[in-house]
């Protein structure tokens, strides 16, 4: 069974943009698109720019895939798989995430694995 941990409330999220949370020493970027009812969580570390900045990237879609563009050098990462669109050998970790009764929850099991 998936173990969920509350990280913040829906009111803390930035619609159509990203925020960053700290859980178990990991930085997790959370993107929220209320119109589509979509929420995504990926690791905040940009493997190209080598800095914790992905939560501050612009999000949108490319060919139907939800993506965030790195604010440093503009590589795109698929928000569902974490794979970089420009270089498929590079990916960032993705985390299960859900909204339950106004609380935003990330799966702990996945985090410690």
């Amino acid at each position, binding site marked *: 069974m998936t173990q969920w941990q509350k990280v*913040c409330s829906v009111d803390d999220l930035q*619609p*159509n943009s990203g925020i960053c*949370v700290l859980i178990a020493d990991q930085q997790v970027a959370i993107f929220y698109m209320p119109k589509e009812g979509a929420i995504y969580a990926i690791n905040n570390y940009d493997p190209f720019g080598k*800095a914790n900045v992905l939560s*501050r990237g*612009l999000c949108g879609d490319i060919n139907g895939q939800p993506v965030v*563009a790195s604010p440093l050098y503009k590589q795109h990462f698929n928000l569902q798989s974490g794979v970089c669109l420009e270089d498929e050998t590079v990916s960032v970790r993705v985390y299960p995430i859900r909204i339950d009764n106004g609380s935003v929850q990330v799966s702990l099991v996945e985090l410690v694995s």
Partner: protein
Amino acid sequence: MSNKQKLVVIGNGMVGQYFLAGLVNQSIRDAFEIITFCEEPRPAYDRVHLSAFFSGKTAEELSMVSADFFEQHAITLHLNDKAAHIDRENKTVTSAKGIHVQYDKLILATGSYPFVPPVPGHDRRNCLVYRTIEDLEAMAAAAKTSKVGVVVGGGLLGLEAAKALVDLGLETHVVEFAPRLMAVQLDEAGGAMLRRKIEDLGVIVHTGKNTSIITDGEQCVHKMCFADGEELETDVVLFSAGIRPRDDIARGCDLAVGPRGGIVIDNSCKTSDPDIYAIGECALWNGMIFGLVAPGYAMARTVIADLAGNVASFTGADMSTKLKLMGVDVASIGDAHAKTPGAMVYTYQNGASEVYKRLVVSQDKKYLLGAVLVGDASGYGTLLQYYLNSIELPENPDALILPARSDESVGLGADALPMAAQICSCYDVTKGAICQAIEAGCTTFGGLKAETKAATGCGGCAALLKSVMNSELSKQGFVVNTDICEHFAYTRQDLYNLIMVEHIKTFDELLEKHGKGRGCEICKPAVGSILASQWNAYILSNEHLGLQDTNDTFLANMQKDGTYSVVPRIAGGEISPDMLIAIGQVGKKYKLYTKITGGQRVDLFGARVDQLPLIWKELIDAGFESGHAYGKSLRTVKSCVGSTWCRYGVDDSVGLAIELENRYKGLRSPHKIKFAVSGCTRECAEAQSKDVGIIATESGWNLYVCGNGGMKPRHADLFATGLDKETLIKTIDRFLSFYVRTADRLQRTSVWMENMEGGLDYLKSVVINDKLGLCEQLDQQMQNVIDTYQCEWKTTIADEAKLKRFRHFINSDQPDDQVVFVEERGQLRPADEEERKHFKLVEMV
């Protein structure tokens, strides 16, 4: 033992290198082991644009060879070693350093040397020539202790050299033996017009002067005495009186040379020894030396074809040229002097705008024989095609040089050119080759350049290439996709119009009505910028926040480690000591790395996202406001100190700069905008390198537009002269509003204007003469932006809800542990990867 033939190339100048670069792309390359000698300490560089060295280009930037070229293509390069002797009997070459190599085929690309007239005193100190980068370094060294410089020779190279002296800050003279400048290419009236224009630029021209001796001067180092008894004092003498072929190595092995020098070659570029070729300026073909690079390239191509066993012949070269001499356009085509029997001449002279044009046509007025253009060479491409392809002239050939009347186009359309027409003479690219590349799927201008190499040499054919491309694309039924991205099938200009006309206030509304999907990092910031330009709402409000580019989202500039830099506005670069101290105190308190910017303000680096509001609270309390360094918006209005303090100042440049900066601050635009105001024509504020530059003159303000620095620097164009302040501001209002409305995303004013059909003249007709009847709207648009200005930081600081975002983690007050600094020269900087391993985060504040 290799069974490859040994190919030795003597000389790695532009032509020698062109030969190598061409050869390694051919399959016959594998038949040869290639060895080349280069006498200079660096491989081939662009000698044609040598004077760019003094306007800031480095030797590396002038290089024509990538760093790994020789290694990549297994070519043995003997750098800094001159080939000294050829033994034809044993087929060997010996170098000055004693290297001894065998050859099967030998290519001489030894080039030329500058001719120095044998006047007594020609070898005095600081009497120099202009040919190599070492020569340039010697010039720069000489200029440091000099005030006056003289160029001997008023030809093409001489005037290039004069530009170099001007760039070095010397009082510059040109001394020419002939009665006019560029005597080979220009007729008398053309030469006179060029002289006037060059004298306007501060160069003093002396024609009909024969130097008899150079001796000790009284005020300067040297005194030049002329045959007519006049004298001229100078500190530096630069000889640029023509070139002579370097044929000494050929003479040393008894190859045939011409009576006045030059290694004799036949149509396949072979010398009198069939295993030895000569190409470029050292070669004498049909009694002629070609002192231009294009014929040298043609010879190189001939030799490559000959080595491959193909029939190829060099049949002479067209010596037509177009160039910009000290900013003056000059072009000469074919028989410029009308020496052809029966030739007819048309001339057009416009004294006011200093334009001179001359057409030489055949007796029956059907064919173009030659042309001279001074001051406006825009017709060069068309005229050259008429000349090279013997295209029949229109009924009234003078239409080709008269100013265009509004309703008729006299330019030769790309369709009129035959497939064999040469579009690019540097790389011998025909219209046929371009069409072929387009058919093969190459449909962008950049792609076409990369594929065919056309317009990558001197660049003179770029406009023609573009018109061939456009005409071919439309003929083949291509629709050029100008959509901004996959979410909107519109250009930025279309989106602007939709937003304006339909009063659209948010991205979501625009997406719903005219787009699809969710948007992306292309369309979101572009639309965010348009909404801000048009309605000027607070950019961090909930409906706009997600649209903003990296830097706009936190109203600061993100640096490589994810921290930010902070730039308060310092309008016009004027700041009181107290304000300066206030910045210093903030910098000190938050341990920020501090640097003065090129735009006359102070940049504070290394602020964490959670520190930004604290820093800005203190800056705002001290009286600062946002500098918008993070936005695609007005950055700075740089100024010199102006008439208030300066002995030479003509008007108050600082006062105007502050007024303009406060007027346009906060204006969101397709790209950043930079201004400068200079208080006199000495131009200390460098206004001519800005999008908008203003220079004070005795008769009012002169306005320059569409300049920029950066990767591809461009001098601004003079837009209007002698303006009073009110007219000046009105003109800038309209110019900026029109730019904001019609430019592409991330398009600076220079590219915007260059891509505009009709260019500068069209822009003037819209902004100054209100050709489109738009000016009232443009005025209103600007007034709205000015009336709704807000300091975004002030608004943000006052809004508790907005400040919630300014922390690294939404659920913790910890800072980002990846941000690590080390100290250097007494300040902090981001630690590099190696350093990170050894340092832990130091608590900053």
